[in-house]
């Protein structure tokens, strides 16, 4: 678990690799987004979905 300073640094450096700067206000929003959605993203990342088959050739207009 990153503390705020580490998280901010991760964001700044991560975006810097694309040449993108982030303002303090934007950073606050990204932090808030992480607070709200981070836990569910981490739960998804760590979920064992090995028994869930992918759907190849996805066509959302019809049933799988």
């Amino acid at each position: 678990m990153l503390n705020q300073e580490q998280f901010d640094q991760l964001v700044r450096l991560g975006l810097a690799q694309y040449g993108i700067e982030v303002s303090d206000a934007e950073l606050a929003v990204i932090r808030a987004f992480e607070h709200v959605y981070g836990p569910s993203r981490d739960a998804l990342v760590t979920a064992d979905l090995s028994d869930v088959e992918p759907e190849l050739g996805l066509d959302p207009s019809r049933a799988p």
Partner: protein
Amino acid sequence: MAEHPQDLSLRAQAEAIATGELDATELLEATLARIEERDPPINSIADTFGAESARMLAEAPEGPLHGVPIAIKDQFALPWRAPRDGAYRTPSGIGPGESALYRRLRDAGAVIVAVTNMHEFGLGSTGHISIYGPCGNPWNAAHCAGGSSGGSAAAVGARLVAGAVGTDGGGSVRFPSAYCGVTGIKLTWGQLSSEGFTLADHSVTAAGPICRDAADARLLGEAMLGHPLERRPAEGLRIGIPSAQLWNDLHPDAERACREALETIRGWGAEVTELSLAGVEHAVISAVLALSIEVMPATKPEAAIEIAPHLSTLISALMKGQLLMPAIALAKADRIRAQLRRSLANAFERVDVLAWPAIPAAAPPIENPSVTLPSGTHPADFANVRLGGIANLTGVPAISIPCGFSSERLPLGLQLLAPWGEDARLLDVGELFEQQTERRYVDATPQLAQAAI
């Protein structure tokens, strides 16, 4: 005709024009005047263009919507106007032209009278962030109209127009429809050509009609699709409710209204079945990832650099933050999508529709767009997408029908989902529900819409 013509339903307008009882030019002029007089408190309309609308009317062919004014969301190209996605400009690069939606409406004889306000880039369920300014709710202008198709729903709720078009990538037709007390359906994905639509390569977003009731939504939906949405008896309906998954953590007002609606439906002989849908526990983040990654121009970092200075801080931050999303999350979200699609396909072998609330709580204040639920206070977006995202991830049609009011007299909506291509079934249920409730929710009129003009 004594009453203002925009107090008539969409189908009544069409019929009155067809019989000669209502002059289409007078209707257009009355509509533009009403927008000018009544819209300022809610800011639902981004743009009107009287000369172009008059030209459309002059050239309108005979058709089911001949001479009827329709408003559309700021995501479709018109010959005289480029869409802007509620932002300083659309990142899609689409300019003025004939979108597929424009052609369908034109060919049905409709007159596009306005472009509606929307949440910036469609990335929000509240409608309070837009280049045009926040969009207010016709039931209380200090509360959100919803998003991202908030302007379309608010314009219909305020009786500025009887029909409007929205788009829905995570609930963006259903949330504002529920917030504003109108009927909105996200059609099955892929039925309307995406030509001239700013999210043309999007796999979760579909357009849909927003109207006062289901019969009007059917009429506008048929025009959009170019084929009939046949009426069939809705009696003997089998309804599936995932109680443990999607009927929990609701504001008591929303839960009460939706449970009462379910009882009404059960009362006409519907069979209600409890069921469970595999994959729901990861639906929120999967929907957020699918929606935001596909919408965000930041998939090209140089686009983020160019566009960010022109956006709200919120959206520019989200755009940049998406660049850091771990790839494994996206891969797993795709797997959840596959799981949900199979879950729904299996469920629809046993039931005709699925039902759960369209929104977990009534429209929050624009000043503080968060909702308080049993689990605590959350951003409205987070709470809403839990209920809205499943239809987008799977592609099925979904509708929000007005079903009650909160203690603050703000509307609430029941959501119904049907199998792929069975859009008409949702309208059948909606119409029967309106009959059974003596139309008290669809005919309820906000104070704003009771003014003389």
